[in-house]
Structure formats: C-alpha cells, structure tokens
C-alpha cells in the first residue's frame, strides 16, 4: 500500500466553522485526498480514531480549560507537526471574548467558570504548545489550508 500522510483533525472551544469548511472541501478534494491522506483521527467523520503516530494534527478552537490544555499537550506528543486552524486557535478570539469582560460581566459568569472547571483566561494554542504552522481566518482561509496540505505532502514525501 502507498504511504499516506497520517492526519488528525481536532476541535476545542470554538464554533467549529473550520470543521464545516473542511467537510465542504471534501466536495472537490475527496478523491485526490483519499489517495494520499490517512484520516486517522477525525471525530466529525468517524468513531474509531487513533491518536498515536500522527504526521500532522490540524487543530481548531481555543483552550478554555485545564482538561483541554492537557488533551492538546497529548496531541502534541503524538504528532510530528501541529497546525493552528482558524481564528480561535491562532489568536483565541472570539472564544476568548470573556477575557475582556468588564467586572460586572465577569461576576455574572464566575460561578459557571468554577462549576465547569474552566480556565480563568482562554488561550490560543501557542500559549500552551509549540505550533508549527497557522491558518488564520474565521473560518479558516481555504487556500492557505490547501497550500499547507500540499506543503506537508511534499515534506513527508507522499506521492
């Protein structure tokens, strides 16, 4: 069997708009990607996912809890390259809008932050782990994403 690029797609705190764009990109790229990509961990498309040994992890969303930070670190340990996808992953906004709340609004949400063990401040991926590449945009810039897929196919010598 030809070697494929083992990819993962993950989402943390966000609206999952880039996940939707990703599924829409399948409309035009499925046949080509099916030959060269191994969709090893893509929860939006499958139940049986494998984290270990990923070549590239694409991650959308910001980090809003210790649990999410811990999962992100685990992904980092299991992938060779990690790409921040979309605005929330790249700069934490708009998921980090609560970081900018005035004291009145901070007080309103305080009990929920505690109840659900959420972090005091929402972070971008780079605040928690090393990020190799970024695809900005809300949702992600499709062309930049396609460019990166091409770059990694070359880098990992996938034909």
């Amino acid at each position, binding site marked *: 069997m030809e070697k494929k690029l083992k990819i993962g797609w993950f989402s943390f705190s966000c*609206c999952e708009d880039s996940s939707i764009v990703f599924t829409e990109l399948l409309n035009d790229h499925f046949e080509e990607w099916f030959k060269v990509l191994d969709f090893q961990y893509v929860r939006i498309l499958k139940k049986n996912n494998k984290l270990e040994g990923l070549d590239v992890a694409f991650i959308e969303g910001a980090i809003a809890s210790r649990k999410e930070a811990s999962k992100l670190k685990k992904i980092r340990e299991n992938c060779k390259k990690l790409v921040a996808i979309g605005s929330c992953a790249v700069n934490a906004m708009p998921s980090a809008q609560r970081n900018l709340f005035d004291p009145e609004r901070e007080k309103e949400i305080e009990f929920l932050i505690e109840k659900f063990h959420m972090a005091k401040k929402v972070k971008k991926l780079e605040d928690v782990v090393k990020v190799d590449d970024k695809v900005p945009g809300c949702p992600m810039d499709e062309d930049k994403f396609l460019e990166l897929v091409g770059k990694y196919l070359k880098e990992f010598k996938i034909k």
Partner: protein
Amino acid sequence: MKKLDISIQDLSKIEGHADLDVKVRGGKVKKVNIKFTDNKRFFTQAIKKRNISTLPQSVARICGTCSIAHTMCCIEAIENALGVKNTEQTRLLKKLTMYGLMIRDHALHIYLFSLPDVYDKDSVLDFTGKEMELLKDSFDIKRAGNKLTTVIAGRAVHAPYPMVGGYSNTPKVDEIKDCIKELKKARKRLFPVLDVYYNTKIDYERETHFVGMVNDEFNFLDGDVASSDGLRIEEKDYFHYLDKTVLPYSQAVGYKFGHDTYMVGALARLNLNKDALHAKTKKDGAKYLKVFPSNNIFHNNLAQGIEILHAIDHSLEILENTKFKDEKPIEPKLKESEGVGVIEAPRGILFYRLSLDKEGNVKEGNIVTPTQQNQVNIELDIKKLVQENLDKMTKDEIEYNIEKLIRAYDPCISCATHFLKVNWDTK
C-alpha cells in the same frame, strides 16, 4: 440485563462534543444524562453593549454550521424592534439564504453523519460501490447549497451580505445561471438517498409533542408557532410558553413547552406543515411524504432529505422568475426598543429576543437554540430505547443504537452551549 452502566465519551459524527451516562438497576433505566461538554463561550454576556451594526456577524460565531440561521434570526429581531419593513426583493433573498443553508447543512448530516449508520459502517471513509456513489451525490448537493448561499449571502459560513434592512450585494445574472444549473444537477442526485432512508425501517416510536413554525410556503422564516396538540401562537409569544430546565450535568439548559417535552426540527416541520411544501416536491416526493406524520425520530433523516428537495424547488422557482436590481438596505431609525426573532434553523426553532438602547446597543439578549429544546426529549428517547432492548441486545449493540438515535436528532452542541442566562424583566 438487570444492571448496566453505559458511559460514552465524545460522541462522534455530530457537531460539537457530548458525553452520555446511562444507569440501569433492577432491570429499570434509572438515569440518562446527555452532557453537552463544549465549553461555554458566554455569548449572551458578550453581546451586551454591542451595536446592531456588528451584532448579526458576532452571533454568527455561536455556531459554524448554523451561523447563517443565527445571523438571520438576529436581523429579524432587530428589524422587529426598530420597525424595519423588508422590500419584496429582500424577502426573496432571505428565503434563498435560508434554502442554501438547509441544502448544505441537511446534506452534511444525512450523508456524512447518519448514512454510515444505515450501512453499519464507521464512516463515509469506509464506503465502497453504491455507497460511494451516494457520497459523490452528497458532494454535488452540498456544492449546490454552498453556491446558492455564496451567490446570495456572500459565503456559506458567516455570510457577510445580509444586514439589518436588506442585503449589501445584489446577485449577478451569470451567478444566478450557475446556481440554477447546479441546483438542477443536485435535485437529480438527491432521490437515491431519499429511497435509502425511505427503505430503511427502524422499528422505534415514542409519542411526544412536535413544535414548529407554520406558513403557506414552508419558507423557514415566517408564520405562527404550532404544536402537534393543536396550539397555535404568535412568534412574539413563543418564549412565554417555554419552561427552562436546568440540567446540572450539562453545559446547556434544556426546555419544555408548557410542561411537556417536545421535539423541534425537520421531523416536527414535516409532521405539522407538509401540505405547504412546494408543489414539485409534493409531486415527486409523494411516496416519501406518506411517512409523515411520524413518531419515529429516525424519520428525521428522511424529513431533512425532503426539506432539501423543497429548498431546491422553491429556490429554482425564485431564481428563474426574478430580476434582481440594485437596492440599498433600509436605514433603521434607532430607538429604545425590544424585538423578537423566530425562525426555523436546520435543527428547529431558533429564538432571539433583544432589548436595544436608543444608540442601537444591546441592553439584554436572550437566545434559545433548537438543540437546547431537544435535549430532554433526546434523553427520554434514549431511556425508552434502552429499556426496550435490555433483554434483546448486548451492551455494545445498545450503545451503538443510542449513538444512531442521537445522530438522528442531528444535535448541534456549539449552539446549545453558547450560554443562556434567562433573566428577562417583563414588567
């Protein structure tokens, strides 16, 4: 089985993140907790003090897949607050925007999320032969929905053209021609999946209440709210009928309609208003429409497929019979006011209530999403499914069937956990 504990983490093939706990003791289901685990992003707080000039785009970020529904409902609430009347062209553009959303969003669900369940496969990535042909159909259908929303509203996700009082762009003749071509192609490719869901018999029924908006052209935007037990109320009064239910284990609150649990979404709409579907949809979909009304949640998949057909048929009628002209959006006159917006999002009724100050800034906002309304109903369906199959299925089979049932609802967890704080002063 007398004793059983089921704990499913991070359900797959749904929008967002959810866990499930089920507890059976003495042969009886004692607990079903579906937990929406997406972290709250506090939109209800974040929109306070935000100006209406940026609000419809801000709320689009509550949910990637339903973003257009949030934008459109928010605009409706603002327009109702400020007394803005739409032109006939804006009305048509709004309908087309919603139809594009329905085509893309429903197709994502019935093909990529739920269709693997029909073939007992984990994923569309495992499809071969006839299944692969269906997957290819989905690409043409989703592409047509994307194209329609892009031409009319600027983009399929977080659409930039719709605004308070109108649209910031007029669709071009060539773009409309392309849309018509793609929609016609998509229509042809839709019928195989309708047959698949029509012929897939899942023996499951539970009586519940269905609630949805009804109007005479099934346009997802207008009309009163009706329930399957005969109630009919004006959209502005909808919130008064909702009974908030705090679910301490979930990042979302649930709702009851009156004191009853209920279902919103495509199945509810078909049960309540199938006579209003487009004439071509009723003609070519006659066989499938006989299924409704139905108390079988798995028919939600077929209902979504029929709604795709309707969205294509009505879009084609509008696009083939309208000459769009350049039109400036109507400038709203700001005033201290309150407005309600109610529309049918892909997964059911979406409700916005906004209170504005005289500068057009939000004083208070309240949003109720479809999946919040369905949460209690989902739990009751799971309870029934587990109870009925305790002695017929293995634990793994029960788990798999629970997942299929949840997916049939097409839950949207991003929407459900935007965070709602209902403290509305109605004095």
